[in-house]
Each structure stands twice: as C-alpha cells, then as structure tokens.
C-alpha cells in the first residue's frame, strides 16, 4: 500500500443548502429531496465554473433510506442534477459520507480514470414522504429517526441489548475525560456551556446554520438574564449525565456537494481551488474505546494516515473541524489530532480559544449543534466551511489570517473515522 495520491487533486467547487427542517425552515419548506440536493449541486457547479459535460462521475450519498425512500439514489437523482448517462454510484459512510466521497473521488482522479468528479450528499432526519406522495412530506418522531439511524450500529449485539448513543458518545466519554484530567463535574459543565456559547456564536454568524440564535439570546427569550443559570436549568436537561442537551447534535435536513478535479487543470476555476493533500479512514465497531474513553483507535489511525499521506504535522494545521455530535467527543478527537494539547481542550473552550477569532479556531460554521446535522450531507458542510475559510469568503466569522491548512474529521456511524487534509494553493 503506497498510502499516497499519485496525482494532485483539488476541490474546485463547493455547495451547501441551509440546514434545517423541510417542514419549517423558510429556505427549505416545500422542497423535495431531489430539489434540495439539486440546489447544493448547482451551487457547487457554479462555484467550480464547470458544466455537466466536464464531469466524469457522480458519487451520491444518502444514509437513511427509510426517510428518503430513494434507493437507487444516484440514478434517481441524475436528471435533477444534470448528470444523466454519467458513471457513478450511490454510497454511504453515514455521517462521514460526503468526505469519504471526496476521498473516493480523489482516488478515481489520481488514478487517471476521471478528470472531474461530483460528490453529493443529502438527508432528511426530520421528515419522510407522506403516504407515498411524490412531493408532500410529514414529521417523524425523534425516536423513530434515531431507530432508523441506529440501523447503522451493531445490530447483532449492541442495539438489541440497550445501546444508546447518548450515553456511549457523551456521558461515558465526559466522565472518562474528567477522571483522566482531574476536572470536577461542575468544571466540565461550565466548559461545556462556554463551548456551546462558541458554537452558537458561530451559528449566529452563518446564514446557512440551522440555529442562528446565540445561547445568550435564547436564555433571555426563555426568561433568564444569566445564561449560565439557563444552562443549568431544567430547560437544558441532562441527556446522558453529565452531558446536557445543548452539548449535542441538532438533527436536520440538508444537502451538500463538491466538485473535485485534477489539480493541473484546477487553476481554470473561477474561485481559488483547494488541494486535497491527503485523507485517512478507519472504522471501529463498538465499543469505540477500551479502558480510556478519550482515546479512540479509529481516530488515531485516521489521523495518522491523513498526516502521513499529506506530509504535514499537527503544528501545520490552522483550522480544525472535529465531528461534534457530542461536544466532549469532539474535544477528545481534537486532542488526539494534536491540534489541542492533551487534557487542555476544556480549558481552551473555557477561554474562548476555539472561537473564530481565537488562536485555535474550530467548527466555525457552528458545528453539529448550531449549524445542524443532516447525516450524509454534514461532512460536505464541514468541507464547505473549510474551503470558504481558506478562500477568505466566510463572512463575519472569517478566521484571520485565512487558514492555509485545514483538517476535517468526521465520525460516520458507527464509527467511521474520516480525516481530510486541505491546503490552499
């Protein structure tokens, strides 16, 4: 195994819908999934300055067929995204889908088979077709959505015996972190409050985020002058002690897309291309960690492979996104990447150093809590944000100076650790 891309590959175009609710969010209400995906594709194609004739293959990702009810997704979508008669495939790596798609595209391009590949991901976690209607959708309950989502988790032993993502991904990891590094539960709770404030601040500056209200404004709206009093109130209950609901994912509907190209023709693109320097992918079935819940073997391997393929070191990374369905797990992953020092992630969060204007910015789009999470589309939304940041096109939440090297880590249920390394040309 060479562990390298034989040819240079760039991301030349990115697209992303607003994340939200197909039944309530103004930009999304009334859209079919075909139209939702097409919007992200159109944005990516225009961003790349290419037309359909230049695309060699299409990789379409959708994780939860129970809500989309669109198996054969790649062919069902082809007319809607202008890609009839192209080679392609429907694939999924759950919440790592779109970035695994980027890695697949990079391999196809570096091998010389295609010059340009389109990657698409879309998901509805909140709705499903209403009574077989081609255009009407209806609400699904949170439990139903999680049951379908959990079909991606060990169905032989874990789910049948009471597995629950909230304890395994949040509460147990939080306790492991506190025990290992000597944090009290109260200190942990306050750091999680500050981390949520940061994520919500980022969301408030992002017109595509699902949640654009700061934590402070939400507290005021619900009658609390002191946002920390709100944080510790019954309005913000423990979902898996000591993790509260606002340290967790906001399930959404959404779509993302990206166009990848041979790097030697990428300079024709109207917007600055970003080189995909390398990637790492590793999968670990439950339990995701052994004695120490802060160290995940699949993350360690994915980061190692991404560093090795890209030839960079942790100190080269200017911007990091770690999958933050669970805020404490994202801190553990960031520490494992070397972006944050081991045991200091909570302190960095407490001090605001993970903000867009801090010295270790993370998840500037708002992350899974504020930007929201639409399973197969989310990794693409993280890449979208990194590309915008690297092009100095992130608006009010722009990092200064713009990152030269970005690293994007995602967890695809359960658990596909995926890391991309991007570099500005």
């Amino acid at each position, binding site marked *: 195994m060479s562990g390298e891309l034989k040819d240079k590959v760039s991301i030349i175009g990115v697209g992303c819908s607003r994340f939200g609710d197909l039944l309530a969010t103004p930009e999304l209400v009334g859209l079919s999934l075909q139209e939702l995906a097409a919007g992200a594709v159109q944005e990516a194609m225009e961003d790349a300055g290419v037309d359909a004739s230049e695309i060699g293959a299409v990789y379409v990702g959708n994780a939860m067929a129970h809500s989309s009810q669109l198996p054969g997704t790649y062919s069902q979508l082809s007319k809607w995204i202008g890609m009839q008669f192209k080679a392609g495939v429907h694939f999924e790596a759950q919440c790592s889908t779109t970035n695994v798609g980027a890695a697949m595209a990079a391999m196809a391009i570096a091998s010389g088979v295609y010059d340009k590949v389109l990657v698409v991901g879309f998901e509805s976690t909140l709705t499903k077709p209403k009574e077989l209607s081609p255009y009407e959708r209806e609400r699904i309950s949170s439990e139903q959505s999680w049951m379908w989502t959990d079909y991606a988790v060990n169905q032989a032993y874990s789910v049948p015996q*009471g597995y*629950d993502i909230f304890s*395994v991904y949040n509460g147990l990891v939080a306790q492991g972190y506190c025990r290992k590094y000597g944090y009290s539960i109260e200190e942990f709770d306050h750091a999680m409050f500050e981390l949520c404030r940061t994520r919500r601040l980022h969301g408030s500056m992002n017109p595509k985020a699902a949640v654009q209200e700061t934590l402070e404004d939400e507290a005021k709206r619900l009658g609390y002058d002191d946002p920390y009093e709100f944080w510790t109130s019954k309005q913000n209950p423990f979902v898996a002690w000591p993790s509260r609901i606002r340290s967790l994912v906001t399930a959404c509907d959404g779509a993302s897309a990206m166009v990848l190209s041979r790097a030697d023709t990428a300079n024709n693109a109207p917007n600055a291309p970003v080189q995909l320097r390398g990637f790492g992918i590793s999968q670990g079935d439950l339990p995701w960690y052994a*004695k120490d819940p802060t160290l995940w073997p699949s993350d360690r391997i994915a980061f190692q492979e991404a560093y090795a393929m890209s030839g960079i070191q942790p100190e080269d990374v200017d911007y990091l996104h770690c999958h933050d369905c669970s805020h404490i797990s994202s801190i553990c992953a960031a520490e494992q990447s070397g972006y944050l020092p081991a045991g200091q992630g909570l302190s960095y969060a407490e001090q605001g150093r993970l903000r867009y204007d801090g010295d270790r910015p993370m998840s500037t789009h708002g992350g899974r809590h504020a930007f929201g999470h639409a399973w197969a589309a989310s990794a693409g939304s993280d890449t979208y944000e990194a590309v915008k940041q690297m092009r100095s096109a992130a608006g009010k939440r722009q990092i200064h100076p713009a990152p030269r090297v970005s690293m994007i880590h995602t967890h695809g249920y359960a658990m596909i650790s995926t890391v991309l390394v991007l570099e500005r040309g």
Partner: protein
Amino acid sequence: MPESIIKRYYDELGQGKLSARKCNKCGAYTFPPTTACEHCGSFDQQWEELSGKGSLLFVSHGIAPPPNPRFDEMAPYAYGHIILEEGVTVEAIVKDVEPTPENLQALFESAPLDVEADPVNVKGLNVLAFKIV
C-alpha cells in the same frame, strides 16, 4: 444445520453464560462473539465462557422514550462502561441504579466498582446486564 453464533450467544446468555470466542492464532477474546477474531481477523477460534466478573468504570444513562421500543418500559436506564476480568471491554445496562444526577455523581466518585453479569430478559430477548456487588 448451521449454528448461528448470534443465536447461541443469546441462548447461552439465558443460562447466565457469557459466551466468547478465543482466537487460536493470537489468543485474544472476541466478545460478544463473531465469525472472525476482532483483533487479528483469524477465523480459527474456539468457544470459551467468560467469568462475568468485572469492574464498572463509568455509568451514565440513555434517553426516554428510547429509540429501540424493546426498552420502552425500562428507559431511562443506567448504562455502564465495564472492563471484565479477562480484559474485555463491555458496555451494558447496569441494574438497580436509578439514573438520577445525584446517584450517578455518587457512582462516579466511588468508581471503580466490582460488578457481575446478571442478564435480564426484555420482551423475550436475553440481554446482558450487570449488577454492582
């Protein structure tokens, strides 16, 4: 007729047994059992029963109502991170713990705690669970 490893695991759990596979190549346990060794990938394994005794490191809880309707009547329940005597990591239901913040804080402060397997039948399926001893 071929024997399903999954069925055998659940059947034997009903007899109070924790049935694992031990690898004849690397010597490591795979628990719960699968067709290949989870450590080295070898298919050359043999059955072995684990002691069911271990150490509870952390305990949290899940949501209610739960995603899996099998647990409708139990949720929210305590769910723990356990290392068995044989070195195997297990995450499972912890019985007889009401998952209030106060109780979980007390367990966090007193862990690690000795536990032993005490499987429970939930709507017709034998499910691994532990009790603090």
